């Protein structure tokens, strides 16, 4: 019995060793030169899945395949893509097996459940094909490389990239927008019932002073709305301020001139000024030439206004809206002509020029607040309160986010760090 067991053991050992012995070159036989690929014992099937990259405008494909446990430091992947039915392969990218895991995709946790056990690659089509047209069918394949030599290749997969209607990765933005809208309606309700408090803004208190001065001197007021179009918040804010300024001008029976760069802004401003004169009970004082179109060329606009200011010597100049390099060209001439000047813009690198040449300057948010501050209308006041709410959220978000992220780092709670950063990611 014992002998039988020994024989069986030896036989089994022989069977197990047979492939190893057979693989060795026999005696003096000449070794057969074979490529490393053929010698590889484990053929690697990639298991590739190609699909549209979710939550984008249709300019990328998403490739996924499982991580092969046999991959080592010498293993890398090479991705090929073609927009043709046959051939036409372009090399998309090449990366080591340790890179491009499912967790590396830059999407927030509620939109992407990436795993380290799979490879996930975002393939940018615009970068490869120039302007990739949506709906084109692409063929993709992935090659496995071992020390630079191809050892396996996936089967060819087809996929189309298309634009997605809903960007789930921006859900945080949508939630924030909904909260802001709710706060706005609550603020409107509160403003209509009890009114809302706004602190004093010095630059806006000076508007009355400037208009009064112009009335006493019998000189015109220049209101320059800048070179922005009606899609810019600063231009919209400027039209609100113009409404209030022109109302006061109509009340004091002074004269205002509004030179324009943009014809659409001019048309809006015409309506605004006309309405203000009507509200002030002075429709007869309104003149069509209050608003005048100058030019849609930045520097000829500036040169022309400079000329007008120099010749007419206005008592007050308002520069409210979107300004670029012409800011100093305009305000310096206004200062030289002796006018009292009030400026306001949200272009932060033009603000220093206004500081140096104007009597009062509204900085960014103060420009947005001006319309509400001057009119005290519940709707505008509510908008201002919503802006303050937004600032409060940013202040709290930065403070609390910072504490949580540092706590997560200290305690190695990486999920907490990822959670906090995903919540505030703009995407």
């Amino acid at each position: 019995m014992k002998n039988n067991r020994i024989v069986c053991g030896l036989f089994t050992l022989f069977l197990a060793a047979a492939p190893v012995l057979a693989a060795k070159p026999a005696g003096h036989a000449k070794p057969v030169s074979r490529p490393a690929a053929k010698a590889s014992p484990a053929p690697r099937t990639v298991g590739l899945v190609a699909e549209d990259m979710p939550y984008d405008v249709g300019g990328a494909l998403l490739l996924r395949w499982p991580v092969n446990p046999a991959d080592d430091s010498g293993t890398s992947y090479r991705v090929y893509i073609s927009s043709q039915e046959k051939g036409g392969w372009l090399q998309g990218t090449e990366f080591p097996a340790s890179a491009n895991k499912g967790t590396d995709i830059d999407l927030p946790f509620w939109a992407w459940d990436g795993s380290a056990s799979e490879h996930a690659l975002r393939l940018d089509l615009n970068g490869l094909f120039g302007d990739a047209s949506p709906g084109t069918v692409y063929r993709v394949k992935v090659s496995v490389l071992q020390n630079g030599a191809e050892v396996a290749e996936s089967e060819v997969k087809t996929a189309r990239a298309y634009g997605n209607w809903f960007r789930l990765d921006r859900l945080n933005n949508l939630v924030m927008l909904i909260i802001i809208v709710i706060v706005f309606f609550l603020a409107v309700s509160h403003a209509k019932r009890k009114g809302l408090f706004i602190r004093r803004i010095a630059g806006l208190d000076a508007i009355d002073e400037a208009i009064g001065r112009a009335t006493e001197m019998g000189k015109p007021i220049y209101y320059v709305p800048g070179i922005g179009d009606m899609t810019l918040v600063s231009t919209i804010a400027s039209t609100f301020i113009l409404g209030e300024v022109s109302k006061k001008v109509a009340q004091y029976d002074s004269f205002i001139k509004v030179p324009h760069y943009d014809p659409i802004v001019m048309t809006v401003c015409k309506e605004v000024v006309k309405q203000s004169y009507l509200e002030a009970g002075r429709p007869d004082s309104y003149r069509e030439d209050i608003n005048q179109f100058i030019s849609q060329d930045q520097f000829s606009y500036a040169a022309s206004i400079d000329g007008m200011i120099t010749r007419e010597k206005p008592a007050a100049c308002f520069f409210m809206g979107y300004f670029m390099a012409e800011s100093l060209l305009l305000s310096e001439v206004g200062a030289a002509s002796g006018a009292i000047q009030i400026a306001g813009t949200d272009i932060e690198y033009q603000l220093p020029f206004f500081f140096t040449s104007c009597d009062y300057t509204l900085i960014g948010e103060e420009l947005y607040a001006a319309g509400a501050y001057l009119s005290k209308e519940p709707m505008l006041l509510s908008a201002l309160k919503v802006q303050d709410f937004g600032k409060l959220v940013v202040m709290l978000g930065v403070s609390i986010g910072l504490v949580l992220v540092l706590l997560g780092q200290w305690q190695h709670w990486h999920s907490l760090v990822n959670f906090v950063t995903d919540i505030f990611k703009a995407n």
Partner: protein
Amino acid sequence: MSHTWMIAGGWLAAGLTIFIFSFLYKDNPFFKIAEHLYLGAGMGWWFQVYLYSIWIPKVADPLRAHQWAVLVPAVLGVSLVTQFFPKISWVSRYGFTFLMGYGAGLAIPTMLSTNFMSQIYGCIQPFTDVSHMTRLGMLNSLIVAVGTIAVLFYFFFSVENKGAVKKISNIGIYFLMAYFGTTFGNTVMARFSLLYGRFDELYSYSGANYFYATQVLLAGMVAYFLVHGLLAKKKPEGGAAN
């Protein structure tokens, strides 16, 4: 022929540059010429830009290709022109309404994303990898975070600026002033490079190959101001007498 045109172009460029610069002294007829020429040339330039980059490729060509859908934005755009005709000026409101709605729709998500979420994320993101941060890097990120909060305090309109709020908003003002100072210096440097460019051109046109255009024009201007100044002194002041 081309050489003659080069010289004429040099005289024109040098002349217009000096005419515009003459405004630094005072308003004068030469500046007025340059100003009005600039205004007219600017309008002409933009007219052809709109014609060749918008009207022809985006309206006329698609219509020739029977792409009738472009009529919708084209009609909305043309409706703005009805402002000039009081009886049908109401039509322009459709165009304006579309523009305002489109502008707001485009601006809201962008503003929310860039001016709101990005500010918070930008402040906390550097601290997500503290182990790889240098001390100076950490200090820098902390200054950015504190500066953001302090500046926001300054722009907070719902509370009176007094007590602790005033102290924090004063810190915000220091941050703002530091920023404005650096921006001012940076922009002034950029403007000086533009000025050097103009001076370089004036220097180029002062050579014999341009028949000393810069010097001749400059001398002419100075002569004009001298003569004009002398004549103005001789004229009696009539304002008080009248």
